């Protein structure tokens, strides 16, 4: 049976669907038995699905204006 440490090592490949069928079966068997790894995996997935919600800011119009000026100044004619 896989060790907990190995489950963690393979966890990214598992959530990204990169394990072989055999790898998946071994993985499932361990997390079926192990409450800690189950929790690790659930929270890893939670973390990954929460990432797109990280604050995404846009530039203000003034900041855009400054960049546009530089681009225009340096533009090869």
């Amino acid at each position, binding site marked *: 049976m896989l*060790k*907990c*440490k*190995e489950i*963690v*090592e393979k*966890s*990214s*490949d598992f959530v990204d669907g*990169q394990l072989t069928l055999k790898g998946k079966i071994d993985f499932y068997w361990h997390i079926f038995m192990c409450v*800690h*790894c189950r*929790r*690790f995996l659930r*929270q*890893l997935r*939670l*973390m*990954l*699905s*929460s*990432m*797109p*919600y*990280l*604050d*995404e*800011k*846009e*530039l203000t*119009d003034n*900041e*855009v204006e400054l*960049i*546009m000026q*530089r*681009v225009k100044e*340096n*533009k*090869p004619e």
Partner: protein
Amino acid sequence: MAAKSSDVNEAAVSALIAQDEKAFRQLVKSYHLQLKKLASSIVGDVVAEEVVQEAWLSIFTNLPNFERRSSLKTWIYRITANKAISRLRRESKSIAFSEIKARGSDDDDDFDAHFDDTGSWQKPPWTWQENDPAKLLTGKELQNCIERVLGRLPQLQEAVFMLNDIEGKTAQEICNILELSASNMRVLLHRARLKLFDHIDHFQETGEC
């Protein structure tokens, strides 16, 4: 959230190729901060802004030659990454880029401390209070914490994590943008995820970063 993974629409791409100023302005507005994050993950905060400015000039100049072989978004990321990489080369002349890339993969495995000698958990993850992905990161403190952790990741771990898990780019696009092999990219991504997990876990347990 949808805006992040979606690309520039067809009409806008055509306008951009024609170097339409209004369309370019919108492109700058939408992507500048994302490009700056990418640049800063490669060359560091101090020169990131300068690198992206340089990239914008190059993007604008080269737009008429954009051949739609990749998406426009991948193309502008690629140009920015290239600018950042050549800046890095200039500033550390003695270091090959391959060496810099390797640095990200041989750093410490903090996460090992969670396991005993037999490979079982000795410090299992804390049970997090929040189950809703839309709410997990709403706290300003945790958000700041994550930004700090991301900023401290080795070069390229941060870039890979950002492009893959925040921006939702494909593995192929990321390897293309950062000149990485697929297996190297997987290693960098996994390490970044574990480090972030560790910090969120610690935050859930203690309320501190």
